[in-house]
């Protein structure tokens, strides 16, 4: 077996031994079962909920929330980013305002959103979009404003108008930056989905965790946490696969 193979087994073994140690400590009641239920019980809850199908509603709810908020934020972020990044005047006018708004925690918009939209899905989506837009926006601005000047000149010589330049040259050129921003935005979308669910008691994994705590059902709580971790990991992984397909041309074979 190659060295890489052994390391992978060792890594797996490490994670496994942590879980086993936890299980042993829980069985021996050395740690409080309320705060640290045994992994076996958390797993059992997961299996049961998958078996009776009750897991899907919250899972899908959180997933869709995260996805729609992220898509909305990405679309707006790229459009505004393109406008700002490709025009010096727009940059000068808007950039200071954006720099001022950016440090605002997205969750701080929750009270405002509640005022306008109540404890609803719309509130959740708007908060997610507000928070998730920043990485994409900033990445787009950077990407669109760092197009190689030679390409701009080629576009001028070939006689492309501004629209064609943005479509054929600026956008593909900015894509690596945009993709990096999209990944961060996705992570933020998940976080804000969970936060808004907890705040507004909207159905979803966040709310499941919240509720499990209130009725002191910690295996359910941990099951929810595990699912969130899996969801976050899968979403990121899928996006990375998509990114490497879109950016195939970056591999230099020289």
């Amino acid at each position, binding site marked *: 077996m190659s060295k890489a193979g052994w390391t992978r087994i060792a890594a797996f073994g490490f994670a496994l031994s942590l879980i086993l140690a936890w299980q042993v400590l829980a069985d021996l009641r050395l740690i409080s079962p309320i705060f640290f239920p045994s992994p076996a019980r958390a797993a059992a809850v997961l299996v049961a909920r998958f078996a009776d199908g009750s897991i899907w509603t919250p899972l899908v709810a959180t997933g869709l929330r995260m996805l729609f908020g992220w898509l909305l934020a990405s679309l707006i972020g790229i459009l505004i980013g393109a406008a700002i990044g490709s025009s010096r005047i727009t940059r000068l006018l808007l950039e200071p305002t954006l720099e*001022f708004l950016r440090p605002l925690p997205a969750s701080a918009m929750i009270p405002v959103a509640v005022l306008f939209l109540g404890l609803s899905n719309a509130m959740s989506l708007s908060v997610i979009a507000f928070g998730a837009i920043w990485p994409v926006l900033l990445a787009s601005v950077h990407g669109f404003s760092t197009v190689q000047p030679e390409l701009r000149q080629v576009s001028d010589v070939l006689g492309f108008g501004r629209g064609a330049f943005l479509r054929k040259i600026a956008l593909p050129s900015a894509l690596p930056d945009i993709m990096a921003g999209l990944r961060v935005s996705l992570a933020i979308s998940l976080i804000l989905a969970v936060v808004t669910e907890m705040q507004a008691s909207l159905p979803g994994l966040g709310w499941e965790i919240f509720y499990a705590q209130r009725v002191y059902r910690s295996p359910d709580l941990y099951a929810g946490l595990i699912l969130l971790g899996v969801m976050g990991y899968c979403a990121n992984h899928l996006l990375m696969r998509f990114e490497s397909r879109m950016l195939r041309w970056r591999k230099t074979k020289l």
Partner: protein
Amino acid sequence: MGRLAIGSILPILFLLVWEAANRTGVLTLESLSRPSDILVAGVAGLRDGSILLATVQTFETALLGLAIAAIAGILVGAILGLSPVLERITGPTIESLRPIPAVAFMPLVLMMFGFGISMEATIVAYACVWPILIVTISAVQAIEPRLLEVADVLEMPVTDRLRKIVFPSAFARINVGLRVATGIALVVAVTVEIVLNPRGLGYSLVLAQQSLNVGAMYAQLLWLCVVGYVLNAIIRNAGPGAPVTFWRPVQ
């Protein structure tokens, strides 16, 4: 300065239009108060010290969580950075824990610690430890191998090795990670306060909203922007060249 002037054109215009629209009755929403009302509420909040108190509360909690994360993250990161084997073994475990949003742990930590500083600081620490850990690992891995070989030849004990070679060399990069983590700390602290914890800026924001004190709510939002902006400015300028470091790495 000129940049600031041009950049303020649109916001000032926006505020003027908003104020005018409100006063002339064109646009009156209960959920949206006038800029002048917001200003009044803001000044009042600053005057009676409530905003400042809340700010201090948020900051001290964020700082506590950040400190915990920094100590844990840098120590573990240094060890993992020095040992590729350990890093590969713990890698998947770290990658599995990282995607779980720190805020998802709020109910659990609430169960353990109840309301208060500890609970909030724990969440902040969990959120901040990952970027610090990862940056530290890569910073340590980027240390000039010759220096480490020198340490081997001199048969330095681990503590000396860390103190005299690892940390000074890796400092600049770790610093960047710390700056990122500071931003995260503030955001997470405010988030915990908004959802659960009855102290700090987040909580006073929610209070204002729930008591329909709309002017105060917007005033505090603006204050948050200012605080965050100032914090970022400080972070940006307090690099490795700041007074904190009084030596230069061997480069």
